[in-house]
């Protein structure tokens, strides 16, 4: 705002992801608390671009008090950054992907050139099946204490009923993601080693029609990203992952007022990010935040990506189905996608993050090795 006279050009300067780091996604992090998990991640993400905390113009984080079981849990986490001298800092009670969105608006407004975004979430200490019931309408749904697998199962049933997918399709999604996760050293969620669809379909139902392979593991994790604008990004990174489009949309809340077999908010967010009208199918890699196997199919349909075509490398990280640290997994999707642009293995990438039951809220981020390569906002 300060240099308004100089910068009111109408042109938005480009913003890029220049660094990404994540903790091991573990089934149960017992030894370290949230701050102790974050410390090495923040240190690594800054170190990769030769920065210290003092180089960051803005800091934004994402986390949830209910995962910790304590109010103001993000306050102590700030200690992992070392917020001294005082920092320009903010926090969303959401996945870190939405913290990244906030940081992106700050950088676009030209108030500063760099931002650190981080998030943390340990699901293992809590009764996650009960905690997540508290995300629901407190009058009509939460008093029934539905668990997240039950809600996802209602969505999976709706998808099957729509004729768009089968249980075999769910298993195929799980098989591909699990195979990919084997190559991801950050996934340590103790998943079964088999990937054969036939074997997966022999598993007993958790909540029908969902079997264990369609459900994410309880995961503890932390992640961080550095954003930079314009020339600063080019200084910090030889091939920044430019954010050429970023948008997110939310749907109504009552499950019974939604078509659970579709994701109109993902479609809208993709359009807003410049990846509508089939353009999402032209990216090299897509990291979709689909904690449940059937949700990847719903997202692909909304984005216009045909999983069978092989044209788009889908969830090369193994996806949230194999490592789903709450409040973290969305930011990890952006980090994983950006990493592939930064290391040159992809020119264009799509990252997606979700929030709420049955994909209620969805964010789409378009990344490219060329800042001019996008039509998004």
């Amino acid at each position: 705002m300060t240099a308004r006279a100089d910068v009111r050009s109408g042109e938005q300067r480009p913003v890029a992801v220049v660094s990404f780091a994540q903790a091991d996604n573990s089934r149960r992090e017992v030894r370290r608390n949230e701050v102790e998990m974050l410390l090495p991640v923040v240190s690594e993400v800054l170190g990769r671009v030769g920065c210290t905390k003092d180089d960051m113009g803005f800091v934004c984080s994402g986390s949830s008090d209910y995962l910790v079981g304590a109010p103001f849990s993000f306050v102590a986490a700030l200690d992992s950054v070392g917020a001294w001298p005082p920092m320009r800092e903010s926090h969303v009670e959401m996945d870190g992907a939405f913290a990244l969105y906030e940081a992106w608006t700050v950088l676009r407004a030209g108030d500063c050139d760099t931002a650190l975004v981080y998030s943390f979430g340990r699901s293992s200490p809590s009764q996650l099946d009960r905690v997540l019931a508290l995300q629901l309408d407190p009058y009509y749904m939460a008093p029934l204490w539905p668990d997240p697998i039950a809600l996802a199962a209602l969505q999976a049933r709706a998808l099957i009923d729509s004729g768009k997918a089968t249980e075999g399709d769910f298993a195929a999604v799980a098989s591909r993601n699990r195979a990919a996760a084997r190559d991801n050293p950050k996934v340590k969620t103790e998943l079964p080693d088999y990937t054969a669809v036939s074997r997966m379909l022999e598993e007993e139902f958790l909540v029908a029609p969902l079997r264990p392979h369609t459900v994410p593991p309880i995961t503890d994790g932390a992640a961080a990203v550095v954003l930079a604008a314009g020339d600063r990004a080019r200084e910090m990174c030889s091939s920044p992952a430019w954010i050429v489009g970023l948008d997110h949309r939310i749907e109504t809340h009552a499950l019974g007022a939604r078509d659970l077999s579709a994701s109109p908010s993902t479609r809208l967010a993709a359009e807003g990010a410049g990846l509508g009208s089939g353009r999402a199918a032209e990216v090299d890699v897509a990291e979709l935040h689909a904690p449940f196997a059937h949700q990847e199919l719903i997202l692909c349909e909304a984005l216009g990506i045909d999983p069978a075509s092989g044209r788009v490398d889908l969830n090369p990280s193994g996806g949230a189905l194999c490592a789903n640290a709450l409040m973290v997994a969305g930011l990890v999707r952006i980090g994983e996608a950006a990493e592939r642009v930064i290391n040159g293995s992809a020119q264009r990438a799509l990252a997606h993050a979700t929030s709420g039951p049955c994909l209620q809220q969805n964010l789409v981020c378009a990344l490219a090795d060329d800042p001019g390569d996008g039509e998004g906002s």
Partner: protein
Amino acid sequence: MAERCAVVGTGQTKCTAGRTDVSIAGLVREAAKRALDDASMDWSDIDAVVIGKAPDMFEGVMMPELYLAPALGAVGKPMLRVHTAGSVGGSTAIVAAHLVTSGVHRKVLTVAFEKQSDSNAMWALSVPQPFSAPLLAGAGGYFAPIIRAYIRRSNSPDHIGIKVAVKDRLHALRNPYAHLHIEDISFEMVRDSVMLWDPLRFLEVCPSSDGAAAMVLASEDVADASDNPAWVHGMAMRSEPTMFAGRDQVNPQASRDCAADVYRQAGISDPRRQFQVAEVYVPFSWYEPMWLESLGFAQDGEGWKLTDEGATSLDGGDIPWNPSGGVLSSNPIGASGMLRFLEAARQARGTAEAHQVDGVRRALGHAYGGGSQYFAMWVLGADKP
């Protein structure tokens, strides 16, 4: 890059100890609909919604933006949920303003609320944690020692806190939305109220309220077409750690840095003269003189003198502080910061009715939270920057 931004609508609920006539959605809609009406807009006019509140444990609803999205007309739109402790209402407005200054959106609805009566504020603010030290005294017990340190440092006379408490409650009598309306408030009444956390008396402490606040923020083209926009001349946030060696909790560096940043943006060098009004987060009476100094309205050690001479009163003061009655008169925690930011907007727009200060050209809105470690401020002006 940085587009101009203005407040074109404000709305708030009546604050009470328990808004038991409404649901959570009903509470936030009451504020949001008033803001939309004030802006002559409808739900469909809004591009994005930014909501803020303090810990989810207050209402026992995790990430309530999910449940509240349809109640705030956000379906099919972007929605963000901010949480930065007690400053959250102010931070939420700033996050919403960034959606406009970044050129991403033109019309943003921002809402903050707390429905503390669904649980109990004292419990929700300090849920006992395993292994942590037994809780000794609650929020007042955290801040009272800091106040004692201020009194020692400034050599302030003991009655200053009482004067602030009386002044803000007198202001509240002009504000129909305020929680506390103590018709016969007096120096003696405050002085004789029970000493809770010495040096803080019962009537020097904020209440626990239910309430919500909302604003419509707009881009320059939209604001130009509205009657009386309050333009954002500057906005800033600063945070520092809760506890570290050598921390000045009386006058935190984050507070001073945040003020310096927002003043630089708005071209403020003499806040007492250049502002006509300030709405500042004062949950405990003594925080008025402390923030008067920290925010540069008075020299170090002399903030209490402004209070003592009545400079901060609506009745004849040259720089009224908290014309709405402030946090001391209404404290729905998640909304409290936004109520400060909102009052600054009403003052700059000239819509503050019975608590309007004459001739406001620039107003300061301020919020803080945590252990005096999270700060959010904005400067609004009647004129386009």
